[in-house]
Structure formats: structure tokens, C-alpha cells
């Protein structure tokens, strides 16, 4: 339908919803209020299990089933992207020309790469102590790997990260999370129960029972997933060409 009709419907629906939401906002308990029953219970439970970072305890211990769902969404989104961006029959791979990169940028990339990888691992490892965790650390580590693409060129990146290996890594770490959950059922308690391992002493690396293990599994899964995701997008943007088109692949080799 024409743009004008669409604007009319949009403004009608939008204003109706806006009025409803604004009135609801005024009914909400005031911002910064003191009434958070669920939050206080969660803090008490997390301290009881000696996990310093309450958010990690909620994520990997109290509501671990949610995190299982979120991890599966991540896994299926990456699997979907792999399936959607596969190389169809009418496409061929054109080798990208090596790009020249300014010397200071190359030096900066090579210096920052190890630091970034170290920071990523640090964020994952200290997930249940200081702010951080599997999700954030995984993304930082994956981005660090792609510094090579920014610093050097695409072939250097492809050399150090065989995509197949990361896809298997992604799937295996996802199944590791599930097996850790199933361990609870096999041991007689409930699925994803955190009652098997000892909780260790407060504020140390091994505190919180299964939380660090689940954290590590998620960290590896997110890192591999992000690498596979970027690999697929880079393939599309850099390598896969339409074999149907006659035009040369342009100077913009990466």
C-alpha cells in the first residue's frame, strides 16, 4: 500500500501504543525504589553458595535453564548463518589480493593481539568473581583474533583460524554445557543442579561449584560462535563472487 497510508496506520498504532505505555510508566513503582524481593533472595542464595559475582550465580546457577536456552539460540543463529551463507552452485571463490597496511597499524595490531586474547581469557576466568563472564570474554577473544584481519590481510587471518575447527569447537562446547547439566540428573538430583561440587572458599578462582565450569563452556562456545559468524561474513564480503557476472572483481581486494 502507498507510503501515505502506511504512515497513517503507523501513526495511529504508534500513538495508541504510546499513550498506553506512558500511562503504564506512571503506574510503575518509582525509579530507584527499594522493593526488589527476587533480587534480595538471589543475593542471599548466591552468597550461600559462595559465588562472589551474584550476576554469574543467577546466570549459571539459579536460572541456568535460561542460559541453556540463550546458548542454544546463539548456537542455532550461528548454524543458521552457516546454512544461509553457504556457497551456492552459481558462485565461485575468488582469491583476494593481499592488502598493504600502514606499518604503525600493523605493529599496533601485532602488539595488541596477545593483550586482547589475554584480556578475553581473564574476563572468562574471573567470571564468577569480578564483572565479566563467559559471554563477554568470548566476544572479546573472538574480536582479538580478527585483529589480524585488520592488521594484516585476509589470508593471514585464514591461516591462523581454520573455520572447520571452530565449528566443531562451537558444537562441542555447547554439548559440554548440556553434559554438565545432565550430570545433575545422573547423580540423582535435578537437571543443572549445582549440588555436586564443593563451593570452595569465597572469592577464589574455584569458588561456586559448577559455575566456573559452565562459565568456561559458555566462554568457549561464544568465542567459537563469533569466529564462525565473522568467518562466514568475511567469506561473503571478500571471497565469494557471482560467477554469473562478467565484471572484474574490482580493485578492492582485501
Amino acid at each position, binding site marked *: 500500500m502507498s507510503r501515505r497510508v502506511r504512515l497513517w496506520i503507523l501513526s495511529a498504532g504508534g500513538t495508541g501504543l504510546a499513550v498506553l505505555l506512558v500511562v503504564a510508566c506512571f503506574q510503575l513503582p518509582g525509579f530507584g525504589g527499594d522493593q526488589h524481593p527476587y533480587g534480595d533472595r538471589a543475593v542471599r542464595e548466591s552468597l550461600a553458595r559462595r559465588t562472589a559475582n551474584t550476576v554469574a550465580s543467577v*546466570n549459571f546457577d539459579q536460572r541456568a535453564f535460561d542460559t541453556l536456552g540463550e546458548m542454544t539460540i546463539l548456537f542455532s543463529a550461528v548454524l543458521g548463518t552457516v546454512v544461509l551463507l553457504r556457497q551456492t552452485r552459481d558462485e565461485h571463490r575468488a582469491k583476494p589480493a593481499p592488502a598493504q597496511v600502514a606499518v604503525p597499524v600493523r605493529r599496533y595490531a601485532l602488539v595488541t593481539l596477545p593483550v586482547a586474547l589475554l584480556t578475553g581469557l581473564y574476563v572468562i576466568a574471573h567470571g564468577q568473581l569480578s564483572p565479566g563472564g563467559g559471554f563477554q570474554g568470548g566476544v572479546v577473544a573472538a574480536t582479538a583474533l580478527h585483529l589480524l584481519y585488520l592488521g594484516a590481510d585476509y589470508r593471514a587471518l585464514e591461516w591462523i583460524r581454520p573455520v572447520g575447527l571452530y565449528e566443531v569447537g562451537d558444537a562441542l562446547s555447547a554439548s559440554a554445557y548440556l553434559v554438565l547439566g545432565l550430570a545433575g540428573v545422573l547423580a540423582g538430583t535435578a537437571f543443572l543442579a549445582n549440588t555436586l561440587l564443593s563451593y570452595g572458599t569465597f572469592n577464589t578462582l574455584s569458588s561456586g561449584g559448577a559455575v566456573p565450569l559452565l562459565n568456561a563452556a559458555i566462554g568457549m562456545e561464544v568465542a567459537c560462535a563469533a569466529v564462525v559468524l565473522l568467518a562466514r561474513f568475511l567469506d561473503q564480503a571478500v571471497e565469494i563472487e557471482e560467477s554469473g557476472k562478467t565484471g572484474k572483481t574490482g580493485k578492492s581486494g582485501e
Partner: protein
Amino acid sequence: MSVLPYLVAVWVFLAGCYGLATSRNLIHAVGCLTVCQAATYVLLIAVGYRDGATAPVYSDIEPASRPVVDPVVQALALTDVVVGATVTALLLALVLQISKRHGTVDPDELSELRG
């Protein structure tokens, strides 16, 4: 002040929906979808705030020494941010394929599915 965060969240959500509906470029539309997503995070974290409280992370402070913010909302938002990025990547992959098969990314020119 006691209602500003909620109003900002509603405003950002509706702005994102407006951008999504009137977009002339599918990549711009996916960008607006991420703006809508950001609105849900703002509302999520604003609901859990407590005046004069600090983050519920006890690596550098004594437990129960200071009032803390609600950790549950943070856990929900935390996973949602990363998952949202991957879902955006999936939608961008679809946009890539559309541009490959349709030759255009302007929703007005996509004419395949009608009637």
C-alpha cells in the same frame, strides 16, 4: 526523575519502530531493530535500580556492607545483548542473500510476494 528512564525506554522503542517501518534500506531496517532491542535493555536495567546502591559484585567489597542493585535483571540483560547481536547477524545474512537474488535492498522494490 522517577519516571524519566521508563519514558526514555518507551521513546527509543517507538523511534526504532518508526525507523523500521519507514526505512528505504534493509540494512538500515536491521539497524533500527537493534535500536528497539537497546530500548528493552534500558527498561530492563532501569527497573532493577535502587537509589544509592552499588553493583552486586563482591570481589572488591564486603558482602552485605552496602545496598546492592537487583542482579536478576542484569543476568537477563547480559545474555540478551550477546544473543541479540547474533540474531542481527542472522537477519543481515538474509539481507545479503536478498541483495544477491533481488539485486536491490530497497523494500519498495521487492515485489516477489504479493496477493
